[in-house]
């Protein structure tokens, strides 16, 4: 990626369409972050603006520079750094929702204090037109004193060229006179000592110092930079109280007062019911709403099973054919064995599950972009509060169905630390897409493909049961954990409900593509490495026993490792091969499948890649002659995977988000305990009830 001379920052309220605009400006030319353990808090993309490369920094959406949540604190701290001249962008694009200009401009006025050019991107201008909201851009620009106001629609790709042109002009401008919004003289006098402190300490401009003075008087501190001593602050608060300005709401009072004067009213009559309100009558109906929610979830899981069948078979067949082709092209030998049995067998076993993962991510993204997830949050808030969580916990928990990592990152929007911590702790119990390969393999091989209750497939139902088990356990444990953690702060719930929008398919597919690529590359790397090591362990030492290679695997290093832990896991119904899989999949769950694939491929006498589920069904205990895998073993193994903590990336992210080793360690301990006893109960209970 070429080095950019200029950088611009993209800021705006949540739901202002900031990310859609970022995607349009950068195209696919984006450094993907927000993923496993990377310390990046921001996404940086490259854009060609008037033929020169410009770096675009995308920050989390926020309502203000006074943070209520961790997510918003990132923006406030970054702003503090810019004020001090660290990586200050050349220009700020303030993304504003045209249908709610007044509230969105609040943040804009805070950004303008920095003294660098601010370009207002009046996004969703198509919706404003639809609602016949008139906005005079030229007047708004002059009254606020921003560099420019450009109407755009990220959805219709309208106004993008105008925006780019304006950005290129703004970059060359370098500095801008900050707004001189009116402050009553007594207030100005009261905050003057604080203002002087900022001017003296950081050599900030008068306006920037004044802005920080107002903020520190309001909330008692300023993020990202230091704040004055408490005697200085206390004196200021006293002065403000004397003149009848409660200091706690000083900043919003002053700024809104100014905005109310200069911004032309573009208000929808309060009585007018919006289209979203009408849709909500169905979607958040007292009992219809929750019913629709459950129905949607059931539909998604059924879709994962039924729709993915054809592409999965295609991938399965082509990998088997490719493996056989390679085996026939190359001379027999160690290298060919490694390639066919280790690498193709191992990686192939994972690729099969890509369709299911993509379908899951597709639906999750669709619902979120539609605006439905915010409704789920309010429908669930009461129930969530009952188990010690928050309405905002729902989205992270549901993201956990795709992957725990973005889910844990999404908890940053939860304001209370306690609710956030409990959400993080139980989140890995939500069955993520890495478990799908194991569920799918076991269900596909051992759960009969029949219909029950006339309509539901037994396989799909078993799948739903696994997700249900994880989810219910997560909720019960939330209750337990939150009763352990003490807190004095009362939590509140102020949440914006975005209007329903038809999701932009290109951005949905982009998300699906990005996640899918990450799954293949990230999981691929681990799986590749482990597959190679495993193949080696399973293939050596080579024993010359005359009666075929059957002997090899049972005396291999891999078997030794597996057999060492076999006594411990025998009560769960697991043999040494599964044991080995449990060991190798500690880093990542899906490795279980590739481990089994590699072992069975090495064991396979003929130089042919067979389907894993066939190999498992055929596998018999050499002593008793009984099947290694039975439906009960499969069930026990699935329950183990519902609970077990097997994901290095999750531990890393929990360590980072909680800033301590205590919580990831606690997570591993409690989840492993749950997994062992959960499996034990299923297997032993099943045996007692006469299942096999």
């Amino acid at each position, binding site marked *: 990626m070429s080095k950019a001379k200029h950088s611009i920052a993209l800021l705006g309220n949540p739901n202002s369409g900031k990310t859609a605009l970022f995607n349009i400006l950068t195209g696919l030319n984006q450094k993907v972050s927000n993923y496993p353990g990377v310390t990046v808090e921001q996404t940086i993309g490259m854009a060609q603006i008037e033929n020169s490369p410009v770096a675009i920094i995308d920050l989390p959406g926020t*309502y*203000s520079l*006074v943070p*209520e949540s961790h997510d918003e604190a990132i923006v406030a701290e970054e702003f503090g750094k810019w004020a001090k001249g660290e990586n200050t962008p050349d220009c700020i694009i303030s993304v504003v929702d045209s*249908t*709610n200009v*007044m*509230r969105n401009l*609040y943040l804009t006025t805070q950004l303008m204090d920095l003294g660098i050019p601010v370009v207002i991107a009046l996004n969703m201008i198509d919706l404003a037109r639809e609602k016949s*909201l008139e906005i005079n851009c030229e007047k708004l620009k002059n009254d606020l004193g921003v560099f420019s106001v450009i109407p755009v629609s990220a959805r219709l790709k309208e106004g993008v060229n105008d925006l780019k042109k304006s950005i290129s002009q703004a970059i060359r401008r370098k500095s801008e006179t900050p707004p001189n919004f009116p402050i009553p003289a007594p207030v100005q006098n009261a905050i003057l000592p604080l203002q002087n402190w900022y001017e003296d300490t950081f050599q900030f401009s008068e306006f920037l110092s004044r802005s920080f003075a107002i903020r520190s008087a*309001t*909330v008692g501190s300023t993020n990202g930079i230091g704040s004055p001593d408490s005697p200085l602050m206390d004196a200021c608060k006293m002065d403000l109280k004397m003149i009848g300005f409660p200091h*706690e*709401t000083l*900043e*919003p*009072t002053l700024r*809104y007062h100014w905005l109310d004067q200069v911004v032309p009213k*573009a*208000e*929808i009559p*309060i*009585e007018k*019911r*919006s289209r*979203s*309100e009408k849709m*909500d009558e169905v979607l*958040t109906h*007292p*009992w219809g709403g929750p019913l629709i929610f459950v129905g949607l979830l059931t539909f998604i899981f059924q879709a994962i099973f039924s729709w993915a069948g054809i592409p999965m078979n295609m991938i399965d067949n082509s990998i088997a054919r490719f493996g056989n082709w390679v085996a026939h092209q190359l001379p027999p030998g160690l290298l060919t064995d490694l390639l066919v049995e280790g690498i193709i067998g191992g990686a192939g076993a994972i690729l099969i599950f890509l369709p299911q993962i993509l379908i899951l991510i597709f639906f999750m993204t669709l619902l979120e972009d539609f605006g439905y997830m*915010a409704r789920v*949050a*309010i*429908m669930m*808030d*009461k129930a969530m509060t009952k188990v010690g969580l928050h*309405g905002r916990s729902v989205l992270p928990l549901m993201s956990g169905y795709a992957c725990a990592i973005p889910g844990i990152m999404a908890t940053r929007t939860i304001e209370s630390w306690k609710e956030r911590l409990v959400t993080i702790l139980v989140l890995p119990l939500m069955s993520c897409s890495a478990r799908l390969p194991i569920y799918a393999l076991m269900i596909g091989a051992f759960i009969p493909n029949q219909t029950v209750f006339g309509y539901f497939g037994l396989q799909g139902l078993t799948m739903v049961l696994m997700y249900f088990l994880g989810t219910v356990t997560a909720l019960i444990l939330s209750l337990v954990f939150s009763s352990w953690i003490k807190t004095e702060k*009362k939590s*509140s*719930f*102020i*949440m*914006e*409900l*975005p*209007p329903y929008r038809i999701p932009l398919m290109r951005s949905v597919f982009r998300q699906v593509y990005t996640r899918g690529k990450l799954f293949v590359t990230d999981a691929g790397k681990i799986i590749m490495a482990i597959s190679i090591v495993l193949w080696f362990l399973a293939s050596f030492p080579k024993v010359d026993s005359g009666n075929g290679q059957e002997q090899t695997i049972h005396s291999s290093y891999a078997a030794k490792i597996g057999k060492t832990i076999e006594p411990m896991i025998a009560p769960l119904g697991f043999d040494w091969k599964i044991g080995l899989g449990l060991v190798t999949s500690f880093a990542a769950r899906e490795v279980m499948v590739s481990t089994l694939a590699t072992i069975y491929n090495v064991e396979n006498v003929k130089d042919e890649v067979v389907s894993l589920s066939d190999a498992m069904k055929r596998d018999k205990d050499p002593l008793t002659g009984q099947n290694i895998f039975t439906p009960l073993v499969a069930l026990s193994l699935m329950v183990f995977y519902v609970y077990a903590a097997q994901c290095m990336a999750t531990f890393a992210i929990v360590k980072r988000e909680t800033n301590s080793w205590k919580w990831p360690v606690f997570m591993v301990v409690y989840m492993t305990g749950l997994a062992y006893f959960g499996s034990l109960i299923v297997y032993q209970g099943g045996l007692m009830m006469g299942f096999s």
Partner: protein
Amino acid sequence: MTLLDLATSQVGQITALHGDPGFRSRLMEMGFHKGIKVRMIQKMPFNGPVKIRVRNGMISLRQSDATNISVRLDV
């Protein structure tokens, strides 16, 4: 009366904000100000959150938070 006392689709005008400072200042940042009109859209069942129309936007608040907003009816 408070925001919570508004019946569904009833309009009121904000007269005061109460509650702890952080909460009040967040309410103001979200557009809740003295003199601003609000409309009750929906009260979720089982004393769940309420949905409010304020300044072109739809905001959801818990009932306990809604009682911290004083409103009057004659608008």
